[in-house]
């Protein structure tokens, strides 16, 4: 069987920076082909070349036997290549259906959009691929990150592509949608589509990919059948070294002291009757299907969105009406938010300014900032978290996703808050940085920090958290610990309408 898509010795550099030094890739129609590599390995550049958004400097790509050189994204789509990007490309003011069929709307004679045909096409598309429920007439800005990702997928599927590229598509999704997407990918492959699947989650890759290609530092370093390779080899190829282990050793460090005590805590109709204790030295996991109240829990604790019920922080009743009332130094709470780009980082400002944004008073004397003292704080954080930035003046937006997340961590650690709210802190982050973040979490817990930790990747909760609180329909469905803290038990509690023991 000949390969549908082959790339040979593709190169690309930006200015003096080489993004791809030698990318080789070949994949067949009818397979799910995983493309793996750390952030900065060149995966994004490679798929942008496939998608026609970036032109290579050298090398050749062949699609179905003939030379493939798309002039722009439209040409790529016409050739049958549809990408689903991590960077969401949708227009917030348009509805779901307007976004899916953007610039391909069914038109009447008078060149106006035929609304009914648009709706029918959307519903047919949703039905054909058994999409989770989304209202076609919803404005995109009202959708959650997960639902927006689904719309992005629908948009890519709407042109019946020969090659579907999924770039970290599950990172924004909850477990149920993830399962659906994995099934969908396999279904499409069976029907003859080539699905190029990019993910940092080895579990998913193992579950659906037929073959794997690994990029490192802009070059292809390995390609193998999924069945013929073990996780250690894949990780070693990605990192260029053997990594001891992804998850750190978990020693119980929780004390009896309660950092956060919630009683009857609730938010609107999304979250209700939550009784929860987060203890000093503990990593308390939070799990749940997408939209079952996790976001509300984290945001309300940080003062965003009104809350009811009682909150005790380090034994004192506290009402938090905004982030400023949460970030009160050592007795405060700090949040690593879900949306790195829109909530966490000032992309067009420097690493330094981002790191110290919440703690300017720490290096201000008589109203005037002291660059030396600021520099010291910044340097400390950069070296403690191993943030890879040329200089502290590098713009945060130019860092890789993993390093951006480290900057947000650094910003929150500088506040000295000892209660950390981490909302999906490893989303879309390479495996090396993930390991570092988990280690950091355990180290902080050992120092007496109290950590509330949500992850859309259940394996992380199982391996990093001491206990896992499972939410279902905005209520606490179960608290799992010890042997009960398993992916199976979490899913049971999150999905099945009986209170687990």
């Amino acid at each position, binding site marked *: 069987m000949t390969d549908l898509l082959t790339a040979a010795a593709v190169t690309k550099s*930006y200015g003096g920076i080489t993004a791809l030094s030698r990318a080789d890739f070949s994949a067949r129609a009818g397979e799910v082909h995983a493309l793996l590599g750390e952030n900065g390995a060149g995966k994004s*550049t490679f798929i942008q070349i496939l998608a026609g958004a970036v032109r290579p400097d050298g090398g050749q790509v062949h699609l179905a036997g003939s030379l493939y050189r798309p002039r722009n994204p*439209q040409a790529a789509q016409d050739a049958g290549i549809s990408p*689903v990007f991590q960077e969401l490309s949708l227009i917030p003011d348009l509805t779901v259906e307007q976004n899916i069929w953007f610039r391909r709307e069914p038109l009447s004679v008078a060149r106006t959009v035929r609304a009914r045909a648009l709706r029918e096409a959307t519903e047919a598309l949703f039905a054909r691929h058994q999409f989770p429920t989304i209202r076609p007439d919803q404005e995109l800005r009202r959708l959650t990150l997960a639902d927006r990702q689904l719309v992005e997928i629908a948009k890519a599927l709407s042109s019946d592509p020969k090659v579907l590229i999924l770039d970290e598509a599950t990172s924004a999704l909850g477990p149920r949608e993830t399962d659906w997407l994995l099934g969908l990918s396999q279904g499409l492959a069976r029907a003859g589509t080539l699905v190029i699947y990019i993910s940092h989650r080895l579990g998913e890759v193992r579950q659906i990919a037929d073959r794997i290609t690994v990029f490192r530092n802009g070059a292809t370093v390995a390609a193998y059948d999924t069945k013929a390779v073990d996780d250690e080899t894949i990780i070693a190829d990605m990192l260029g070294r053997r990594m001891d282990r992804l998850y750190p050793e978990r020693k119980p460090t929780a004390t009896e002291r309660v950092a956060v005590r919630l009683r009857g805590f609730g938010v609107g109709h999304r979250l209700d009757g939550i009784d929860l204790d987060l203890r000093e030295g503990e990593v308390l996991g939070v799990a749940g299907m997408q939209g079952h109240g996790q976001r509300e829990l984290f945001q309300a604790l940080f003062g965003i969105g009104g809350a009811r019920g009682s909150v005790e922080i380090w034994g004192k009743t506290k009402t938090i009406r905004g*982030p400023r009332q949460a970030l009160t130094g050592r007795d405060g709470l700090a949040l690593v938010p879900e949306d790195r780009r829109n909530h966490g980082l*000032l992309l067009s400002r420097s690493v330094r*300014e981002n790191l110290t944004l919440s703690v300017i008073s720490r290096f201000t004397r008589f*109203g005037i900032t002291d660059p030396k003292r600021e520099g010291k704080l910044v340097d400390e954080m950069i070296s403690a978290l191993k943030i890879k930035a040329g200089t502290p003046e590098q713009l945060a*937006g130019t860092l890789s996703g993993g390093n951006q997340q480290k900057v947000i961590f650094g910003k929150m650690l500088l506040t000295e808050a000892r209660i950390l709210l981490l909302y999906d802190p490893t989303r879309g982050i390479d495996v090396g940085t993930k390991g570092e973040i988990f280690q950091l979490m355990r180290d902080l817990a050992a120092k007496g920090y109290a950590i509330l930790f949500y992850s859309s990747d259940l394996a992380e909760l199982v391996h990093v958290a001491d206990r896992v609180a499972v939410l279902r329909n905005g209520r606490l469905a179960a608290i799992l610990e010890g042997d009960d803290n398993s992916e199976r038990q979490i899913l049971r509690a999150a999905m099945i309408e009986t209170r687990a023991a």
Partner: protein
Amino acid sequence: MNFRRHRAILLAYLGMIVLLLLTSVVAPGFLSATHLRSTAVLAAFIGIVALGQTFVIIGGGIDLSVPWVLNCAAVLMTLLAGSQNAPLVWIMPLLLAAGALVGMVNGLGVALFGVPPIIMTLAVNVILQGGILVYTGGAPTSTAPQAIQFLAVGRILGFPVILILWIALAVIATVLLSKTAFGRHLYAVGTSATVAEFSGVPTLRTTVLAYTLSGFTAALAGMLLTGYTAQAYLGMGDPYLFTSIAAVAIGGASILGGSGHYIGTIAGALVLTILTGLLPALNLSSGALLIVYGVVILITVSLASEAISSLFAFLPRFGRRQSPSA
């Protein structure tokens, strides 16, 4: 000083020097000390109005109420003082406070009630215009007191007083922007109000302060301008709407907020003033003059903002937005 980071500001100064040389070719004598001094004095009025405007724009807003804040301060000063020097002791602080208060109302409207800055400040501008018309009945006012004329056109050891004032204000603005928590917060709010809020930045206070400052500097400029023209008249603030914003933009600030510096705005104010001086030398009719003026500013501002966007051009992700799947 990091060159890349301050490229836009350096470009503004480079443009200013080129413009100066150009002018000296077209109009010999332009580079004389006298002429340069009068250019700088004229630039000071734009520069002072644009000081507050710089803060507002960096914070992601815009202040369209400056013309009539300026005008009201000018008219009220002459009305209240009646050509006397002594009452200025209480009139000037009072009017500065009133200007700041108007700015505060702008800021509260924008930050607390969520009114878009254009609407909020434009409405306040019109209200002030109407108010002063009602109050004065459109009648001309008395001449400006001697003391204020001294501030506007006087000299100390041959050096114009207003330039000393401008330099002092520039130092204060620079310290505020570069060296204080308020400055940091302002850039953060202008870059992303949401990220700022999530980071514990006092976004409301920061925004209100920026507008308050703008009201203050507009009122100050109004009184000083009265000293310069020796009289207050209705409509005297109108040219400062466009010039205060253009000065900020030429100075390298993004009109969308989050970038720029008052040091750049100073160059912007000078460029605009040199331009106004240069164009009459071309012997154009006053109508044609305005057209050329407008076009030149348009080009200058778009060049300045190009300098900023080129900073990001080499980065595929943050450069001009791509449409990967459309």
